[in-house]
């Protein structure tokens, strides 16, 4: 049986490790790249190298950046009194999208997960404690996911970081804006009911 050249097999192996790429896609991409124009392939390879070289975590908030501290941390127009705590660097982008949050960020790098052996020491909590001493932070907005681990981590942070003069809040969970009740699942609805607020 004819088989693919070794270099292509190796490339398929590497591509297959990427997130969201299965064996079929890996094979298609590898075959495409092996036959594509040299210039385009070089550009892609250089792009990957450059991104890997330049991108790092911001020394203050832990977000992805090329220059540390990142643009958000060094922007004097951002409110230094509010810090939004998120799990992963991409979550910063999600919160930034609506453009309503004007404070700064702190990326934990995950959430407590005993089943995956992720403990408080594995998260950037000590860094957050240092920031609380150094920066004029008045409010921490906990914006972790509403799953079991996200909720447990939020509780952990609220307990450990609590100190006089610091307000700790949790983002609300409830109905997606613009949708009717019939599209919400029961767990979401019951939580939305628990977290109801006085209207006028």
């Amino acid at each position, binding site marked *: 049986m004819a088989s693919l050249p070794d270099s292509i097999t190796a490339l398929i192996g590497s591509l297959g490790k990427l997130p969201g790429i299965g064996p079929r896609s890996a094979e298609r991409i590898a075959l495409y790249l092996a036959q594509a124009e040299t210039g385009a392939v070089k550009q892609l390879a250089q792009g990957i190298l450059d991104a890997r070289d330049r991108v790092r975590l911001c020394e203050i908030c832990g977000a992805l950046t090329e220059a540390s501290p990142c643009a958000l941390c060094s922007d004097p127009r951002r409110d230094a009194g509010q810090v939004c705590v998120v799990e992963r660097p991409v979550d910063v982008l999600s919160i930034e999208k609506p453009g309503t949050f004007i404070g700064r960020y702190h990326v934990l790098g995950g959430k*407590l997960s*005993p*089943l995956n052996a992720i403990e408080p020491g594995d998260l950037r909590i000590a860094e957050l404690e240092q920031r609380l001493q150094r920066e004029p932070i008045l409010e921490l907005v906990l914006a972790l996911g509403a*799953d*079991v681990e996200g*909720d447990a981590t939020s509780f*952990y942070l609220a307990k450990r970081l609590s100190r006089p003069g610091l307000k700790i809040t949790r983002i609300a969970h409830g109905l997606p804006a613009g949708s009717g009740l019939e599209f919400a699942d*029961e*767990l979401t609805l019951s939580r939305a009911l628990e977290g109801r607020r006085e209207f006028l």
Partner: protein
Amino acid sequence: MHLAHLRLRDFRNYARLDADFSPGFHLLLGDNAQGKTNILEAIYLIATLRSFRGVGGAQMIRRGQSAYFVGGVVVGRGEHEVKLYWSARERKLSLDGRPVRKLTDYLGVARAVVFCTEDLQLVKGPARSRRRFLDLLLSQTVPAYLALRQRYALALRSRNSLLKQPAPDAVALDGFSRELVSAGESLIRLRAELVRKFSPLATLACQRISNQDEELRLEYRPSVREDFGVELAQSRAQERLYRTTVVGPHRDELQLLLNDCPAAQFGSEGQKRTVAIGLKLGQAEYLTGFHGAPPVLLIDDIMGELDAKRRAGFLPLLELARQSRGQVFMTATEENWPRELGGNLQRWGVREGTLQSQA
């Protein structure tokens, strides 16, 4: 609700099967080991995504093959096409041609209740089998239940994993305790509510099929007596010793009492069987009342083992299924099928993994 079409590929001893079923009563006749129960198993799989024989996907693949396919058309409120594919590497479930992302979106498309010899485990088996019975009935009637149950299970596993550590972080443990308590309290409330509504149905069903004056009573005995949070905190010393969570809904018991005595300990074999069938009849009636239409009834070879009185206890349910255009599948060998069910049924011959209509 009924199954209008069943399609099997490499499932158990069926290389390929395509069969159309009308509403009503289907009698699957054949010798032992020809594949009668496998048909019921496939229908139950469509409804619950589990085998009632308590086995995993690998065991349902036809010998020598690497994957099975089970498909069906279910007619209830509207018509739905279900496709299920299982191999060691890949599982696919689609509803009306679209992949199913959340189980809660799928469960409820088809509902089935099975009567089989394994039901005896409900009475004789460990508390886990009775909790699973409650859980199944709740997930068939309360859409949020499954998600809550999964939340509880994750909180429990996380917490137990923390307790295994030499010196668990107390605040992290508290964080997972809160999640455990909040999901657990909902589970306890829903289970208590269910048992209150379900118990009278099981009692009546049992009376109908029992020979003596026996009264079945169901008692929900939650592991938590009053306040989950308080009792969890009080159990810390024990937790430290056993390194696991010792109170909570995962330790609940559903006590089955016959004339106020635990059926598992004091019942005769015949009584235990009566109780098991009573629970299943109750389940079918509860689902019928709740959804306004009976589930598909799957009766696996148990009629032959029952005496006339117990068989007669089935008749009202079967009659109800017939009247409301429901569907019943019953397996039997040629000698022992219950002839009192009359001629109003579709007979099928099952032989070596094939299904033939017998006019």
